[in-house]
């Protein structure tokens, strides 16, 4: 497979070496980090094992859309999800700069392998029953609401207004490219969403959390009022599905003003709020996220998150980071030691104000501006996960709404299980 960085295995610690160097960090989480960093492909037998009647093989999200027989993602034996975007094994180039892992079937077991060695046993995400249903308007429900093993995801607005202005979108983000490629409706129908939710909730024991996450919608009387209106409307109608005032829900959205946050918290079932700052460094943020920087600014983003803790309460607010993107050139770090020290220092400021930090792994998607760049080492990303977990414990911040099963995409919150 061409496109891999030259001799990359000789320049960095292997998975086995990183696990041995960090005996206090879950090896399952380290595997997850590396699979996300390098990507994963499936052998023909592994694809054949993905019975579409039992496993989720279709998805419509804002970052990816697929309808094939390749499993959406993986589960490890400890319940750790590996949220991955399976790559076609026929590709002749290596899109993430390092050879991906391979899922194979050996002796009836589905396993993750690297260099022909077994790394871990895996299973595929189970398919929820509603995936086979259609809305009254005739749309497949899997296209309306996506699903992880224990969570539903709703992306009402399938685009992001930061991409309407040239070079204002976040450089690592694939929303615009995914939207353009798939020719889908820009805005979901509330009726379709509510009908799908009602159907999904009929399956006992299947779901623990509902997440709402989509691109920014900048319009309105005040900046982002249209986006807030959209969510208030949907969440208000969702109230009819439940018998409690609040439900474990997470809104991942743009950083709102106090007035906008109060509308959402006081008037709806929403219980948790996330505004992704993406990178814990103001200078790199300004370069990576020019739209966010121009409209709200790094310091403004932080202040809005700190205010959100006052409104939503402790353990109900966090921010997502695309860990590794702090190395994206030309603005990023060149030293892993400096990046780690700087990132953890800034993370401590968020956590000391009660804002959790949710680490995702930078995946250099082929349809993004940073596709040719190389993410950092596994050792760095593992140390960052451990450092964030330590800080989260130090400040007693527990974002249970964004953990291994209510999300499954954050190595550092996986570590809070013990």
């Amino acid at each position, binding site marked *: 497979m061409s496109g891999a960085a030259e001799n990359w295995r000789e320049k960095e610690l292997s998975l086995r070496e990183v696990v041995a160097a960090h005996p206090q960090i879950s090896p399952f989480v380290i595997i997850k980090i590396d699979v996300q960093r390098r990507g994963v492909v499936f052998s023909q037998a592994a694809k054949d094992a993905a019975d579409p009647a039992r496993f989720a093989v279709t998805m419509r999200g804002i970052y990816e859309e697929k309808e094939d027989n390749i499993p959406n993602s993986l*589960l490890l034996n*400890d*319940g750790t999800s590996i949220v991955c975007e399976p790559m076609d094994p026929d590709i002749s180039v290596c899109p993430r700069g390092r050879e991906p892992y391979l899922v194979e079937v050996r002796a009836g077991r589905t396993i993750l392998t690297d260099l022909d060695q077994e790394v871990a046993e895996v299973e595929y*995400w189970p398919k929820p029953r509603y995936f086979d249903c259609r809305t009254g308007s005739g749309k497949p429900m899997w296209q309306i609401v996506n699903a992880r*093993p224990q969570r539903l995801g709703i992306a009402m607005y399938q685009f992001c207004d930061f991409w309407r202005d040239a070079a204002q979108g976040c450089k690592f983000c694939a929303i615009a490219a995914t939207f353009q490629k798939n020719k889908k409706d820009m805005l979901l129908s509330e009726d379709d969403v509510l009908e799908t939710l009602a159907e999904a909730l009929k399956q*006992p024991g*299947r779901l623990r959390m509902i997440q709402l996450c989509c691109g920014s919608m900048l319009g309105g009387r005040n900046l982002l009022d249209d986006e807030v209106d959209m969510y208030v409307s949907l969440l208000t109608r969702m109230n009819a599905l439940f018998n409690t005032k609040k439900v474990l829900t997470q809104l991942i959205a743009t950083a709102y003003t106090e007035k906008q946050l109060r509308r959402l918290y006081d008037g709806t079932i929403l219980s948790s709020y996330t505004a992704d700052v993406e990178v814990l460094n103001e200078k790199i943020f300004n370069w990576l996220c020019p739209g966010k920087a121009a409209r709200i600014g790094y310091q403004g983003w932080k202040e809005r998150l700190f205010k959100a803790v006052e409104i939503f309460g402790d353990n109900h607010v966090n921010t997502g980071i695309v860990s590794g993107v702090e190395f994206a050139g030309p603005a990023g770090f060149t030293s892993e030691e400096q990046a780690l020290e700087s990132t953890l220092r800034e993370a401590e400021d968020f956590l000391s104000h009660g804002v959790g930090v949710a680490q995702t792994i930078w995946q250099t998607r082929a349809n993004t501006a940073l596709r040719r760049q190389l993410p950092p080492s596994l050792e760095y990303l593992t140390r960052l996960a451990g450092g964030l977990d330590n800080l989260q414990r130090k400040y007693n911040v527990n974002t249970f709404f964004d953990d291994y*099963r209510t999300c499954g995409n954050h190595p550092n919150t996986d570590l809070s*299980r*013990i």
Partner: protein
Amino acid sequence: MGIRLSEDLRTALRDPASLKVIAGVNRAGEPHVVFKEAISMDSEGRNLQCLELLETSQTNRNLTHSLWFQRKIAVNVLHPKGRSWQIKGLPVKVHISGPLFEEQYIAVRNRLGPEADLSAVWIIEPLEEKEQTYLVRLREERLHYPLVGHLDRFTRAFQC
């Protein structure tokens, strides 16, 4: 390498009147032991299956810790007729979703009522089995350490 549990122990595990406890340690090494009614054999009859009802319980944390770092846990089963066994094992898998989880979720709620929830179905591979019934352990000690004990037990007066 897992072992096959004895038939007597398997029978005790199937008896709803048996008491079962599970013990583990947290990441600081602190022990934690609780009664756990819902320990049984799994559907294949090889491993233990343990239902954890509470997501935030210390048992859930400790079992995760054991699975991550290959640390053994202990289970004790006390049959109402007085025999008891200790099992040492390793958690090898946890079901938090999927068909088995949903089946057990429904069963738990049918048994315990609408307030009940299910966090996880743990699968524990047994590695060691030892009967801990007092008379069995006493015979074992007498056999291997015949001179160990208080001397008054060995006096002529005692033997009379």
